[in-house]
């Protein structure tokens, strides 16, 4: 039972990091990205590739994954952050589709459709970490670092600038804020931390393929932010906990037929989300008003 809970804990930590990073750009800067799974995937493939071919040291794979994801985010940000609102959503959707094709076709780096198999466990000063309980501690530390970084950022001048851009881009620009630069930096920070989550995910699972980084994942991360509470610090974590533990909890209801549990999960899931959005549109920990 301990391992099972630790395993769930690892995934909750990884997805919490992803939700926090998306919340940072979505909730604070108003950048609605449908490509967050791309940054997650780039970090995962970078970490997995390095661990398989060079070193699985945490000091190698995490920085490499973060730099690669941040660099990719610049490629997206520089041309597309000049557009606003729904245009950026469309551009990020395009990147998501493009990335899935690249993940599938760039075989020497991603393993193609077959993915990367047998990724070595992450090592911290020579000690390999692969047991769920030990790995949970690693991801918990990563989550704490992420919370601290974004906590500091949103309370800083930078955070205030982001909120100003979210509320009125034109007004922020009129007050002398360098809107494209602030948006680009925020996206790069967000992508770097999402890349870190990807490297941890790849190391923990020992296997990654394109199925984990498709549009569904981007939508799932966005759902975690919205359900938890957009623009709040604890909301994305609550969203990740709810969306990852609810299906697992339902599978323990022994009176339900096990082979029908998937359909029942989806009914409960869908109904819950609809009711939540009807009666608490700000999310579980967000403001309740419409």
């Amino acid at each position, binding site marked *: 039972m301990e391992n099972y809970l630790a395993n769930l804990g690892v995934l909750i930590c990884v997805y919490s990091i992803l939700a926090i990073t998306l919340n940072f750009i979505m909730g604070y800067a108003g950048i609605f990205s449908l490509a967050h799974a791309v940054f997650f995937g780039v970090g995962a493939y970078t970490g997995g590739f390095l661990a398989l071919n060079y070193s699985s040291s945490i000091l190698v794979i995490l920085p490499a994954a973060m730099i690669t994801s941040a660099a990719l985010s610049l490629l997206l940000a520089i041309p597309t952050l000049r557009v606003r609102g729904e245009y950026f959503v469309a551009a990020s959707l395009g990147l998501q589709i493009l990335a899935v094709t690249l993940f599938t076709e760039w075989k020497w780096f991603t393993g193609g459709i*077959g993915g990367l198999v047998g990724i070595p466990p992450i090592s911290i000063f020579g000690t390999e970490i692969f047991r769920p309980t030990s790995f949970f501690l690693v991801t918990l530390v990563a989550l704490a670092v992420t919370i601290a970084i974004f906590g500091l950022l949103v309370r800083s001048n930078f955070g205030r600038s982001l909120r100003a851009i979210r509320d009125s881009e034109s007004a922020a620009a009129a007050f002398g804020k360098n809107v494209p630069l602030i948006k680009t930096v925020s996206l790069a920070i967000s992508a770097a931390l999402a890349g870190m989550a990807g490297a941890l995910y790849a190391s923990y699972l020992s296997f990654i393929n394109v*199925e984990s980084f498709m549009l569904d994942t981007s939508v799932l991360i966005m759902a975690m932010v919205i359900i938890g509470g957009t623009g709040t610090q604890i909301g994305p974590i609550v969203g990740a906990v709810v969306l990852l533990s609810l299906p697992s909890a339902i599978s323990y209801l022994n009176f339900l037929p096990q082979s029908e549990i998937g359909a029942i999960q989806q009914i409960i899931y869908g109904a819950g989300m609809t009711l939540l959005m009807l009666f608490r549109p700000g999310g579980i920990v967000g403001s309740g008003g419409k």
Partner: protein
Amino acid sequence: MNYFRNFSAAAAVVALATPAAAEDITIGGLFPFSGTNAVYGDVLSSGAKLAVKHINADKMLSGTLSIAYEDTQALPQPAVVAMQKLVSVLEVPFTLTSFTGVSKAIAPIGARNEVVMINGGGVGPDLAELGEYFWNVIPLANLEVRASVPYVVEALGKTKFALIYVDDPLGGSIRNELEGVLEEIGGDLVSEMSIAPTAQQFSGLAAKVRSSGADAVYIASYGAQQVQIAKQLRDNGVDAQMISYSAYGVPDAMNLPENEGAIFTAQAVTLEASDPVTKRFVEDYKAEFGKDPAPYNVNYYNATMLFAILAQALEAEGKEITGANLLAKRKEMGSFDLVGGNVSFLDNGTLLFPIDVKQIEGGAARTLTTVDIK
């Protein structure tokens, strides 16, 4: 008070005199019951359900066998959560698995915890490389080449092959196998063309096949794409013999007029066989589900039955039913009487089945020959 004391003493005597009930035995079942591949959940698990019924009716094991089904959605991440539950909470020694991505994701967890995982649905050749705790009760796609290609060369006299293969582990392994087999039997691979998994336009490939002078073309693709390839090859004047593997045994491919005469391979399961295991399976499957069993049903029946055979042997020796003991017992026993006859495992944990070479005639498949793969 005396009454209570006497009752307690009597209850204690009865409890000591009554033999302890045998513990129930649980194995895992990782199938997609929701999501885009939900349709496979029931298809893949029905054979296993029938096997459980037979095993319990025959009292093969000391306790009642049951399968703890977990929904994977055919995706790696939910599968890892489900596998951890099976391994850490339910502590199963053995689990049924399906789908390539799912199988690769759970393989390290199974190997670390010494839990046997057995696949009866995926045919990706890399499923043979997931360690000794991962077994396959289905012939993998690369083995099918060893049946069809020699037949086409020797019986039909076609020696110049073109290959169209999807650019993934499946296509790559078929290419490797085809090159090796053709070299062995004196055929030539005159042209090989890789395609993206999402490609749908193949008229250019047809021109290349024509210009290569190939008299046989092997199609290593699946789903809607394989149908498009066949159609566009014929529409663009390719009259070479078309050959493929088990993914061709689906209604879409069989009913395509352009596929008339195409040859494909499939796992040989003689459902008409008179051995008691096959006979009982076929009769009871029809009675239970109202239709003829398909190879997937056979495979998961066999996978579950294999567990019972191994566990029964371990119990007879007084050994615990663990993944490590099941693996050792499989290696010791070597071959097994399952649906389709007596079968044995390769060293890499893949079950060897004879393979049928079939030809499409009027939308149906006619078996040309059955080949024992070595």
